[in-house]
């Protein structure tokens, strides 16, 4: 069974604060993704990556940075958090054709920016 873990599971910070969300996958997948989920907007892609050191900009990247340090680890950074970034964040990983491109999601991190 594919495994994606996220930490922390819940985080509260203040406006202007610095936040790092962590994601680790043990699926040996090359692709990793960060999404945010908001009512009425569904899942929106923030950043994604193909392998260590690779970063790609998603559909809603403003205010977010990301770093892929290893094949397993993908981090999302909010350097000056704002209330508009209050959301539920999901990390996901996927393989190639052999895994039918299925994305496996982590349990999510609920972030509140006061």
């Amino acid at each position, binding site marked *: 069974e594919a495994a994606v873990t996220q930490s922390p599971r819940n985080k509260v910070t203040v406006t202007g604060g610095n936040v790092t969300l962590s994601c680790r996958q043990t699926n040996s997948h090359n692709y990793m993704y960060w999404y945010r989920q908001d009512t009425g*907007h569904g*899942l929106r892609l923030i950043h*994604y990556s193909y392998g260590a050191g690779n970063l790609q900009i998603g559909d809603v990247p403003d205010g977010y940075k990301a770093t892929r340090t290893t094949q397993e680890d993908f981090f999302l950074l909010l350097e000056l958090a704002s209330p508009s970034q209050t959301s539920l964040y999901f990390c996901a990983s996927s393989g190639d054709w052999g895994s*039918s491109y299925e994305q*496996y*999601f982590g*349990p999510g991190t609920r972030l509140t920016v006061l």
Partner: protein
Amino acid sequence: GDSVTQTEGLVTLTEGLPVMLNCTYQTIYSNPFLFWYVQHLNESPRLLLKSFTDNKRTEHQGFHATLHKSSSSFHLQKSSAQLSDSALYYCAPLSGSFNKLTFGAGTRLAVCP
């Protein structure tokens, strides 16, 4: 870029009635890959079913869908709704670069006794 349109908002059904959640998509790829993901309350999204083949019915856990390239559709159906089907459903085409999925806003299904 790719886009997807789903049945909007909330669909409320009585247990035992059929389920039909609409999905139409736009993609630049001539051979689209389509996915349905399901997300139950307080859980993360997980794959429900997928299709890469035109006009072929795919089934999983009582749900089925058929990819129709001619109408750019991939509607999700089930013959008889169960209480446990209450969840948020996402349709998503695969975007060829980096295996991205383009998710819509999702359709929330509520099944009542």
